[in-house]
């Protein structure tokens, strides 16, 4: 009777990610890391955010976020102030240690910025080169997604996934760290779809459009750009907020890759292939 027992499916290698998806994924990853780190360096040149068209150290009416350092200068305190509430961020924001162990008065610490020390000129040059990379790469990915239908099949949540019961089930499964196995691993679950669609179709387009709105040349070419965000300084604020969202996604994405089998997941994103079945 042993032959009648449900057979364990034979392990098989399947193509999980198209080469264009793999290529754009890694280019995007590299661009996002450089853009994040150079962006934090650029922010350090004027670590304040405002709403509206204008704002400066002499015009603080619409300031809503600021970082800085306070005395005693023998042991300075770093701080981050958001909407009037000040947080002590000594060691991380405002005041941190340089690689040599000396006190450094920078918005973000050396390990978070590129270049590691204050260098607005270099940070800008790198930021704008990789801005071109993320835009062209994103357009290639979007075009492929639209033409192949992958955008609907793989990225946008499916209607049947949008029921309360389904959403709740996916939240519970994620909380228990139960990740899809077998055939189910060949398609994204609803939370994953929300995360990927949110980053690729909302947050990345937002950082691109707010980034362009900070360019006086682009504002003159396309006057709707800064109007869209309610002014250049608002665009700068939204750029920073959307960046924080992308940084948060990146962190969560890396944690979940590690928890769900990093060799298999990263391997699939490099080779495109994934072994299905045979696993528990």
């Amino acid at each position: 009777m042993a032959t009648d027992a449900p057979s364990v499916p034979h392990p098989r290698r399947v193509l999980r990610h198209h080469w264009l998806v793999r290529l754009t994924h890694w280019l995007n990853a590299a661009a996002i890391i450089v853009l994040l780190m150079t962006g934090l360096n650029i922010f350090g040149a004027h670590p304040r955010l405002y709403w509206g068209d204008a704002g400066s150290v002499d015009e603080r009416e619409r300031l809503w976020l600021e970082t800085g350092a306070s005395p005693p200068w023998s042991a300075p305190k770093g701080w981050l102030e958001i909407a009037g509430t000040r947080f002590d961020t000594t060691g991380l924001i405002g005041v941190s240690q340089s690689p040599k162990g000396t006190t450094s008065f920078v918005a973000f610490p050396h390990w978070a910025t590129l270049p590691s020390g204050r260098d607005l000129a270099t940070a800008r040059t790198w930021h704008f080169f990789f801005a071109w990379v993320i835009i062209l790469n994103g357009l290639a990915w979007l075009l492929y997604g639209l033409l192949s239908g992958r955008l609907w099949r793989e990225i946008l949540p499916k209607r049947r996934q949008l029921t309360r019961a389904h959403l709740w089930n996916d939240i519970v499964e994620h909380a228990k760290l139960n990740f899809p196995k077998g055939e189910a691993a060949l398609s994204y679950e609803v939370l994953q779809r929300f995360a990927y669609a949110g980053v690729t179709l909302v947050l990345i387009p937002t950082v691109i459009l707010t980034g362009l709105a900070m360019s006086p040349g682009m504002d003159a070419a396309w006057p709707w750009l800064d109007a869209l965000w309610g002014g250049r300084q608002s665009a700068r604020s939204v750029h920073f907020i959307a960046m924080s969202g992308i940084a948060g996604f990146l962190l969560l994405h890396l944690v979940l890759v590690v928890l769900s089998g990093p060799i298999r997941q990263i391997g699939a994103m490099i080779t495109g292939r994934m072994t299905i079945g045979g696993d528990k």
Partner: protein
Amino acid sequence: MIQLHRRHLLTAAPASLLLTGCDALTRNPTAKAIVESGEQATYRWQRLVGRDGLAREFSAADISPTFKVNGTHEPTNPKWQQLSAGNFADWRLKVTGLVHRELYLTLPQLRALPQRTQITRHDCVEGWSAIGQWTGPQLAPILKAAGLQGGARYIVFLCADDYGGEASKGGLQSASRYYESVDVVDAFHPQTILAHSLNSQPLSTGHGAPLRLRVERQLGYKQAKYLMQIVVADSLAPFGGGKGGYWPDRGYEWYAGT
């Protein structure tokens, strides 16, 4: 203790190696050449989509209560000091280089030309913005009066101030004479003016008395203050460090439309 120490080393070493590697990469000539190609792409792109685009003009209600003074606050150059003491009566704007007629313009002559008043947003490379009302003659008719020779590609603005830079801005920090330059497209743009007034007042010392450039589709460091001379040129190589401006010589983009 030893184990803790070793574990600390194991995690810290790759991280710091990676960071030193990144910093080294930013100094690598090949990597530099690749990322610097982005500026040309941006320049060409902005000329393609917005060659004739106008910078937004604001209403009087939008004018910043205080317009931040940046860069030089007062030139130490004795010649400028002397001109300032004489209320710029002896000041002349020289227009030279690849022109058919050199011009020597006084402030009253510049004020007698048709004037343009525009309320625009000044965007500093550091990230802040201020809105002000600028008044002065357009640059285009002045260049037409001088007559550009064939081969004229750049309009170079020579200033009176020596600037020493700021540690926070990175790059070379040696003091040198401030200058800037734009291409012919920006020079003949209707909003490119030689401003003698900010918010209906003659330019203060901090804002560049007696005359400054306004090239509204680029960042603040292009808005050269304390103008002394305009040179029409076919190359930027003979000026300063050869990159077309005080800050471009220190690693910032010559085309500052972003």
